[in-house]
C-alpha cells in the first residue's frame, strides 16, 4: 500500500510550516534517511528525512507552500512493486500513517543533554495522530496528554476533544466540543474568535469561518492572536510604498513581542558598569588563547556574568507560569542575534557551568547557525534570561522587550570612555550602561537590583568569575 509522508512537527509547539524545498521529485527512489525536503518554521529551516524506502509516487504539497499543517500528507511513497495505479482512489489523509513517522533531521552537532531531551519530546509530538489499525482502535482511545505535555498536540481523532481552553487571564473560553476539536485540527486559536452561539459561545460555524494559521502556537509561550491593529495602508496613498508581505519570522516577532508588551508588566533598571578591568582581562586571555583560535568577546564575559549572577540570585532566574513561578535550576542565557529580516535568540544552556572559552565557542556557533537558519526549535525556545547587545552599533542605552516565557532581558549599550567621579576625583573610565527589563509578576524592583548588583560585580571584577 502506498505510504504517506507527513509534515513533521519540528517542535512541540509547531502547528504548521512552509515547505521550502523538495529534494526529490516524482519517480525518484528514496532510502530511509535520505533528505527529501526542507521545511521552514517561523525560526528555523529543517531537513526532512524519509522514514521508509520507496519511490516518490506523488508530491502533494508544492515547494513554497506556506502554512502546511503538521501531519498533513506532503507526499506519497510507493513501495516495491507498486505503481501509479496504486494511487488510484488512494487518499493519503485517510491512510494509517503508522509506518511513516518522519522525524526532522536535525543538525548533527548538537550534543547537550537538554536539547537531547527536547528532541525526544519533539518526536513524541510529531508522531502522527494514529488513524488506528483495527486492533489499536479496539482499545480505549489514548488519554489526552497530561498537563505537562505541550497543549498543542494534534488531537487523537478517536480521543477526546481538547479541554476547554482559557484566555490569558485563565477565564474559560466557551466553545462547543466540536468547535474545539475542529479548531485544534485546523490550527485555529479560539482566543481570536468571536462566538455566535448562545452567550457568545464559539460554535462550529465560527471556527469553520476562521482562517487556519491565524492561531498562535500553543505551548509554553501561549500567545493570543495579536489584536487586529489599524491597517496602515489606510494612511498612505497607494503606490507611495512597496508592500513587503510578512514572512513567518516577522509574523512571529510581531505576535510574540506584542503579546509580551501587552501581557508582561515591564519595568526597567539601569546601571553603569566600568569595563576597564574586564577589557584588561579579556586582552590577557585573548593573548593566551591566540593559538587556539578562540577569541573572547565582551559579550562572552557578559553571558558568564549574567549566568553567575542568576546563580547567585536564584530568585531572579524565574518564569511566570500563571499559578506558579518556575525557578530555573540552570542559567539558560538567550543571546539576541540579528538576522537578515529579523532576529532570533538562541539559548546557551547551563551557562553557569561553562567557562569563557566554551561560552565563546558555543555562542559563536549558535549565532552562526542562527544566521543560516539552521537552529532547531529546542535551541531557541525556553531559556531563562536574555542579553541583547547593541553596543557594537554605538547605542548608549536602550530598553528591550522581554522574550516570553523568560522574565528578564538585559539591554547592553556600548562601552565608551566617560568621565567618572571616584572618591571626589574625576577619572576617565570605560563604562557601559545596561538596562534590565523585568517581568514584575515574577521579579520585583529590589530583586532586580540585587541581580544587577551581582552582575555588575562580576563585570567590574571579572576575577570573581573564577570563584
Amino acid at each position, binding site marked *: 500500500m502506498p505510504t504517506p509522508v507527513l509534515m513533521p512537527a519540528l517542535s512541540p509547539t509547531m502547528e504548521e510550516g512552509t515547505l521550502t524545498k523538495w529534494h526529490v521529485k516524482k519517480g525518484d527512489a528514496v532510502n530511509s534517511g535520505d533528505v527529501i525536503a526542507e521545511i521552514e518554521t517561523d525560526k528555523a529551516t529543517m531537513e526532512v528525512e524519509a522514514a521508509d524506502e520507496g519511490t516518490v509516487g506523488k508530491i502533494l504539497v508544492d515547494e513554497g507552500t506556506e502554512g502546511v499543517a503538521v501531519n498533513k500528507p506532503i507526499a506519497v511513497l510507493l513501495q516495491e512493486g507498486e505503481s501509479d495505479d496504486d494511487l488510484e482512489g488512494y487518499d493519503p489523509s485517510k491512510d494509517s500513517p503508522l509506518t511513516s513517522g518522519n522525524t526532522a533531521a536535525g543538525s548533527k552537532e548538537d550534543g547537550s543533554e537538554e536539547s537531547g531531551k527536547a528532541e525526544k519530546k519533539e518526536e513524541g509530538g510529531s508522531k502522527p495522530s494514529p488513524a488506528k489499525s483495527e486492533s489499536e482502535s479496539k482499545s*480505549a482511545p489514548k488519554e489526552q496528554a497530561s498537563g505537562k505535555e505541550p497543549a498543542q498536540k494534534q488531537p487523537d*481523532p*478517536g480521543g477526546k476533544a481538547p479541554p476547554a481552553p482559557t484566555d490569558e487571564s485563565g477565564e474559560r473560553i466557551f466553545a*462547543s*466540543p*466540536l468547535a474545539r476539536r475542529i479548531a485544534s485540527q485546523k490550527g485555529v486559536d479560539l482566543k481570536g474568535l468571536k462566538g*455566535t452561539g448562545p452567550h457568545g459561545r464559539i*460554535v462550529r460555524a465560527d471556527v469553520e469561518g476562521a482562517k487556519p494559521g491565524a492561531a498562535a502556537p500553543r505551548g509554553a509561550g501561549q500567545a493570543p492572536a495579536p489584536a487586529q491593529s489599524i491597517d496602515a495602508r489606510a494612511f498612505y496613498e497607494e503606490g507611495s510604498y512597496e508592500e513587503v508581505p510578512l514572512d513567518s519570522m516577522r509574523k512571529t516577532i510581531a505576535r510574540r513581542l506584542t503579546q509580551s508588551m501587552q501581557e508582561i508588566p515591564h519595568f526597567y533598571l539601569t546601571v553603569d558598569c566600568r569595563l576597564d578591568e574586564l577589557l584588561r582581562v579579556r586582552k590577557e586571555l585573548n593573548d593566551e588563547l591566540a593559538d587556539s583560535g578562540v577569541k573572547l568577546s565582551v559579550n562572552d564575559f557578559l553571558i558568564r556574568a549574567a549566568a553567575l549572577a542568576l546563580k547567585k540570585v536564584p530568585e531572579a532566574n524565574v518564569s511566570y507560569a500563571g499559578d506558579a513561578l518556575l525557578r530555573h535550576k540552570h542559567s539558560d542565557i538567550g543571546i539576541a542575534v540579528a538576522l537578515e529580516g529579523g532576529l532570533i535568540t538562541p539559548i546557551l544552556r547551563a551557562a553557569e557551568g561553562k567557562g569563557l572559552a566554551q561560552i565563546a565557542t558555543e555562542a559563536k556557533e549558535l549565532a552562526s547557525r542562527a544566521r543560516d537558519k539552521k537552529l532547531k526549535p529546542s535551541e531557541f525556545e525556553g531559556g531563562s534570561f536574555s542579553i541583547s547587545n547593541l553596543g557594537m552599533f554605538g547605542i548608549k542605552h536602550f530598553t528591550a522587550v522581554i522574550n516570553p516565557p523568560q522574565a528578564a532581558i538585559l539591554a547592553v549599550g556600548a562601552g565608551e570612555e566617560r568621565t567618572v567621579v571616584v572618591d571626589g576625583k574625576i577619572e576617565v573610565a570605560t563604562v557601559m550602561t545596561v538596562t534590565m527589563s523585568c517581568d514584575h509578576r515574577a521579579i520585583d524592583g529590589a530583586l532586580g537590583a540585587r541581580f544587577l548588583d551581582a552582575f555588575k560585580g562580576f563585570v567590574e571584577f571579572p576575577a570573581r568569575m573564577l570563584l
Partner: protein
Amino acid sequence: MSEKNYDLVILGSGPGGYVAAVRAAQLGMKTAIVERDKLGGICLNWGCIPTKALLRSAEVYDLIERAQEFGLKVEKPTYDAAAVVKRSRDVSERLSRGVGFLMKKNKIDVIEGTGALAGEGKIAVDGKDGKQTLTAKNIILATGARARTLPGLEPDGKLVWTYREAMVPEAMPKSLLVIGSGAIGIEFASFYRAFGCEVTVVEVMDRILPVEDEEISKMAARAFKKRGMKIMTGAKVEKLDKQKDSVKATIANAQGKSETIEVERVISAVGIDGNVEDIGLEEAGIKVEKGHVVVDEWLRTGVKGVYAIGDLVGAPWLAHKAMHEGVIAVEHMAGVKGLHPLDTKKVPGCTYSAPQIASVGLTEAQATEQGHKVKVGRFPFTGNGKAIALGEDQGLIKTIFDEKTGELLGAHMIGAEVTELIQGYTVAKNLETTEAELMHTIFPHPTLSEMMHESVLDAYQKALHI
C-alpha cells in the same frame, strides 16, 4: 367594515402560528391570529395529537393481547371503534381549548374566519363577524398544508380516505390499502393492523419510510411484516376501482407486473401540498415553488413585513419545525440578537408506529455521500436490560459519527419509546458534542437510554454490553 391595527397578524393557528403568536405577545407585540377552523390547526385537531391518541389505544390493546406473557390473566380483549375514536377526539378537543386559553392568557386576538393578504400590511378576513381588514406591521403566513392527491387516486372521503377520514372511522375496516409509507401512512397502517385489519402498504420507492436510514427502513419493514402487514415497495397503485363498499386496486409491483387486490378502504398518504391558494400570494408578489412559499433563512418571503413558516414553506413537514420557525420569524422581526436560522439537520423526526422510529441528522448513506468518513455504532434492544424487562427486546439504536471530528452526524432508532429518546441526541447535536462527551455522559440504569450510550461506545469499538 372595521379596521384593526396590530403589530403582528398571523394567518393560521397551527403549531407554527399559535406558537409564533405566544412568542410575539411575550415580546410585547399586539398580536392577532386568524383561524378558519379550530385553534391548533391540523396538528392538534387532525394530525399529530389525535393519531397519538389512536395509537395509544392500539398499543394498550396490543399489550392486553400479550397479557399472558406478563403473567396476567385477561379475557380476550375486544374494542369499541367508536369509543376509540371518541377518546381521540376528546384529546384533540381538550388541547384545542388549551390553545384558546393560551391565546387568552397572552391577550392575543383570535379572529375566526378566512384571511388573505390584502395589500401592504393588510389582511382581509372573511368570517362569521363579517368582513374586516386588519392592518399589521408584520404578517406571518402559517396556513399549513393538506394531503397531496395523485391523479386517479383522488380521495372521496368514503372509500378512499385521507388522514382526515382515517382518523374517525365509523368501524374498523377488515382490509386496508395504504398508499405511501411516510410517517402518516405507516402510523395508520400500524394502527389499523393492531386492531386486526389486513393492511397492505404500497410504496413507490424501494423501501418504506424512505427518509429514514436504510438499515432502519429494512428493520421496520421486517417488524411490520412480522405483525402481519403486507408491504410492497417499488410498487405503484395504478388504478382504484370503487365498488359498492370496497375498492379494487390495481398495483404494478416491483417486477412491473400488475396485481389486483380488493380492500374495504384505501388511505392515500402520498405527501402534502402547501395551502398556497386564496391567501393573496400572487397579488402580493410572493414566490411559490412546487406548492410551497419560498422564504429566506429568516422565513422572509421577500415582500416587506411578510414572513411564512411551517408546512407552507416546505419539508420537513413537522409541527416542531413549524413551531421553531414561528419563534425565529417573530424574534427576527423583533430584532432579537443572536438568532440562528433553523438547521434541518437538527430537526428530529418521529414515527409513532409499533415499533416506533425516530431519527435526527444524516443517514449513513447521506453522510457518506457528503464525503464524511464515518464511524457507525449500533446497539440492539436485545442487549438492554430495561428493554427485556419491558418485553420490548426488538430494535436498534444506530449512531453515525464523522471519523475526523467526532461530530455526531446522525442517530437512527427503531423500537419501543425511541420517539422519547431521540431528543437526547438532538440536544447533543445542538450543543455540538463529539463522541467524547457522549461517552462521558452517565446514563441512568436501567433505562432504554443506556442503549444510546452503548451505540456511541460501539461506534468506537467500546460497547460494554454486547
